[in-house]
């Protein structure tokens, strides 16, 4: 047994470590987890799909060919970065500027990958390489909020639902243009912060949880006001969790 997680404070938290045989497929825990991940992500599927169509439609209007839009969505698979890159491409920005911007917008993945990694310790490397590519904010949020430590299969189920609905949306969008001209009018843009916020709320069990969440809310909002380009997620995420980990005692009883 590795000391990879502090003992859970919640009795539901026990017994969710990965079964070594589960990674090879066939485990019913794998199937249950994937199903749970898909169901937990359903609240986001309509918005992810609609934003996929918006991206596909915008990218084609900006002058990209459909096959380029599909290629980008499959190979990069990072909605925020893609929305930033397309107007830059259309405006003839330098390739280096586009690639560096993409990197900065996606740096938050380091935090999410580090958090999820211990849950995947029995998975073969090939699986990890594939699972890594599907890393996204929404599935990270779903996986960490459902179980402590996060269940790898719940994460995979959620990642399949998110990537499937995004790519389906992109496919439709490049063909028909964005299905909804202004998703914000229907409140669909709010589905993303709504899910993130709801998943914070269900994790607040102790006073220290509240303090961490509040500190991060304030710091990230402050940084977002000062710096464009998604820096606030990495900065608030590292500083607040790092500071808390330094002053708290590991493995609280």
């Amino acid at each position, binding site marked *: 047994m590795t000391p*990879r997680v502090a003992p859970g404070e919640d009795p539901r938290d026990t017994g969710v470590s990965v079964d070594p045989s589960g990674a090879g497929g066939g485990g019913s825990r794998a199937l249950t987890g994937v199903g749970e991940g898909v169901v*937990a992500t359903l*609240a*986001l599927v309509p*918005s992810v799909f609609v934003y996929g169509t918006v991206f596909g439609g915008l990218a084609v209007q900006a002058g990209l*060919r459909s096959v*380029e839009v599909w290629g980008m969505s499959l*190979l*990069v698979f990072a909605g925020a970065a893609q929305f930033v890159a397309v107007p830059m491409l259309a405006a003839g920005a330098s*390739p280096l500027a*586009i*690639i*560096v911007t993409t*990197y900065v917008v996606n740096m*938050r*993945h*380091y935090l*999410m*990958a*580090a*958090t*999820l*990694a*211990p849950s995947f*310790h029995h*998975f073969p*490397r090939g699986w*990890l390489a594939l*699972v890594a*590519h599907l890393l996204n904010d929404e599935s990270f*949020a779903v996986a960490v*909020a459902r179980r402590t430590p996060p269940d790898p299969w719940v994460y995979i189920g959620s990642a399949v639902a998110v990537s499937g609905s995004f790519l389906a949306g992109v496919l439709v969008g490049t063909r028909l243009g964005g299905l909804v001209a202004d998703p914000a*009018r*229907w*409140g669909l843009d*709010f*589905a*993303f*912060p*709504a899910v*993130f*916020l*709801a998943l*914070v*709320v*269900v994790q607040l069990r102790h006073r220290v949880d509240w303090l961490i*969440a509040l500190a*991060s*809310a304030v710091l*990230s*909002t402050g940084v*977002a*006001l000062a710096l464009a380009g998604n820096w*606030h997620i990495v900065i*608030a995420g590292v*500083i607040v*969790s790092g500071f808390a*980990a330094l002053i*708290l005692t*590991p493995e609280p009883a």
Partner: protein
Amino acid sequence: MRTDVWLVIGGMALVTYLTRAPLLLVLARRPLPPRVALWLRLIPLAVLPALALPLILVERGRLVASLGHPPLWGAVVVVALAARRVNLFVTVAAAVATVALLRALG
């Protein structure tokens, strides 16, 4: 085939993968010191509000915290329902509907 566009897409794909794969591959393989494990356990509590709050409170680099800002009321709906452990789908649907309604009225 536009080589320049594909080169940009390839570069974007590469740097994005470099943000996703290395830590997942490396940290999945070794036991972590307790304090690092504690840090990883606290990251979600710090990352989730950092994802959520700026999307609600910051618009085009400006703080929008007025009562006439629909996302603020959407956030109130989310917190009220999520604190009562209402199903995530229902919570999000109610919040989206609230924001859409307020935007239609505004």
